[in-house]
């Protein structure tokens, strides 16, 4: 069944003010066919070297691709997505579409106290005229367990793909997760993703996300501090150029006492790009001694660029510490002149300053070997800005 166009979120919806979904108005959300050998071969060309020690799993057009993947680790299965239920509201519409159309779910459950290093690639190679890719990931980390997850999103060059990811991650009591997510799809791609992360008592979740691909990219994330004393460090960077739209809505619900969240966002809007980040912090009634800290900054680096950062606090209890800062600004003229006065080209100087602007996000990548690799990848798209700042 194709999704009706009229039900897509619009800019009139509170959490979709900065989204631009016009390109999806005629899109088909039916699942793409299972990828053939040609599609698998095209996807293979996009893979980068695997991080040492990680198990690699690859989905192509939303379907698990055994020929590009390692054997499924213990506790991982390909399952039927039909049991997934999503709230009936506009913010979960794409998750609902995913649940409805996904061909399968990749379901990973780790044992208690077990450690797993997982690299998951979601690659879309088929044009949206044939449908959408609906990667569906369910990951449950056992009590006291440790997950290192590298999640990579890419798409075939010069192909108008449509990806609609859903990621469900649960950390059981005292579990820890270090997550690095990148989205570097082709500039003709459409990328939607919905994340649901549940944190039980005593959990630690460090998540770093870097997005600089796709014509239009939207992250909708719901993080729930369900258990006491859980910790979330969310850091993301979004880089927009041309007419790209990089949009994110991250809702963090502190539903239990002692929950702590640090949210850090740095965005750069070049050219005519639009970059938006909406960080919604909720502290529920009775969730005392919670702590929430937001630092949201965006750099306007194009005359026709747009940037919007919006911290939101919704607090229903008294004993809470919450701070937030949000700024949108341009490149610092004095810094730029300083670099020019040392003989650097204007383009190099600007890219160095842009690099410096997002360097704190790169530095927060909790996995050192991934940090260096991603720093190089990001820097390669910003001439003159090699990642010395994080390698030394």
């Amino acid at each position, binding site marked *: 069944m194709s999704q009706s166009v009229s039900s897509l979120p619009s800019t009139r919806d509170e959490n979709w003010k900065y989204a631009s979904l016009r390109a999806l108005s005629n899109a088909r959300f039916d699942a793409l066919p299972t990828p053939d050998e040609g599609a698998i071969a095209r996807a293979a060309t996009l893979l980068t070297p695997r991080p040492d020690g990680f198990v690699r799993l690859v989905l192509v057009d939303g379907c698990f691709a055994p020929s590009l993947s390692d054997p499924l680790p213990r506790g991982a299965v390909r399952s039927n997505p039909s049991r997934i239920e999503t709230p009936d509201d506009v913010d979960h519409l794409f998750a609902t579409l995913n649940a409805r159309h996904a061909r399968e779910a990749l379901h990973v459950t780790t044992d208690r106290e077990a450690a797993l290093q997982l690299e998951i690639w979601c690659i879309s190679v088929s044009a949206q005229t044939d449908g959408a890719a609906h990667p569906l990931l369910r990951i449950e980390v056992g009590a006291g367990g440790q997950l290192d997850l590298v999640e990579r999103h890419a798409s075939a060059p010069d192909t108008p793909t449509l990806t609609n990811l859903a990621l469900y991650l649960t950390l059981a009591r005292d579990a820890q997760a270090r997550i690095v997510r990148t989205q570097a799809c082709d500039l003709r791609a459409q990328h939607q993703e919905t994340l649901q992360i549940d944190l039980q008592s005593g959990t630690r979740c460090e998540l770093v996300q870097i997005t600089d691909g796709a014509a239009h990219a939207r992250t909708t994330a719901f993080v729930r501090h369900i258990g006491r004393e859980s910790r979330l460090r969310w850091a993301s960077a979004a880089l927009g150029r041309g007419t790209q739209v990089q949009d994110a809505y991250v809702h963090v619900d502190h539903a239990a006492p002692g929950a702590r969240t640090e949210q850090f966002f740095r965005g750069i809007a070049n050219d005519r790009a639009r970059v938006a980040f909406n960080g919604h912090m909720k502290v529920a009634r009775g969730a005392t001694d919670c702590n929430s800290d937001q630092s949201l900054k965006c750099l306007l680096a194009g005359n026709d660029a747009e940037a919007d950062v919006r911290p939101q606090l919704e607090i229903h209890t008294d004993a809470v510490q919450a701070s937030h800062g949000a700024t949108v600004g341009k490149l610092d*003229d004095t810094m730029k002149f*300083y670099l020019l*006065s040392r*003989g650097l080209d204007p383009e190099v100087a600007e890219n160095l300053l842009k*690099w*410096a602007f997002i360097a704190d996000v790169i530095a927060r990548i909790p996995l050192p070997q991934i940090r260096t690799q991603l720093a190089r990848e990001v820097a390669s798209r910003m001439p003159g800005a090699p990642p010395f*700042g994080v390698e030394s």
Partner: protein
Amino acid sequence: MLEIKDLHATVAGRTVLNGIDLVVPAGEVHAIMGPNGSGKSTLSYVLAGRPGYEVTRGSVHWRGVDLLALPPEERARAGVFLGFQYPVEIPGVNNVYLLKAALNAARKHRGLPEVDAFEFLNVVRDKMKLMQMDEAFLSRGVNEGFSGGEKKRNEILQMLVLEPSLALLDETDSGLDIDALKVVAQGVNTLRAADRSIVLVTHYQRLLDHVAPDRVHVLARGRIIRSGGPELAHELEARGYDWLLGAA
């Protein structure tokens, strides 16, 4: 030779330089002194090409090249170095990268090959010893978290690495304790050479106790109102500027 003729400049629509004439021959150190707001820093910025500092009249030639026709990065590659009064902090760009990029930009301009990492570090380490700086500074963000004195040492370190032919040092002595002042002065003196000109902008005589100038100029109301030998600085130290301002 640096040759400035009838230089007028405005900042944000306000005239700050009001007809400066100045010649600094190669091999000489000239000190520019003057009261607050006289245009000393503006002169430094104009020579280095800072945007927003508009030259409305006059000319500046360096080794026969029309400096004002060049954008700031080309002036730097041509050998002009500005030591900032307030060096900016640039977190996320570390010192070693900036130094290497700056050095290679200058070398490329001179038709020289880029230095490799090993060669570069050897050069920098020697200069850091001279400036009594810990090597840990190299991996830190540019001036990030540096004290005022450390920032000034870092400016001189950059100057020593880049070996400019024209050094403009804008109140490099401000905020330095006496030990740091000696180190910075030693760095400046190391750079003195027959083919190099150095312009020291300063408020005080104390820097000139360690870096002996060939000439001293007094800048007031955007013009050079008095020039003389090193003794002029001593006279200013003893008498202040009022006697000159009244006569100007």
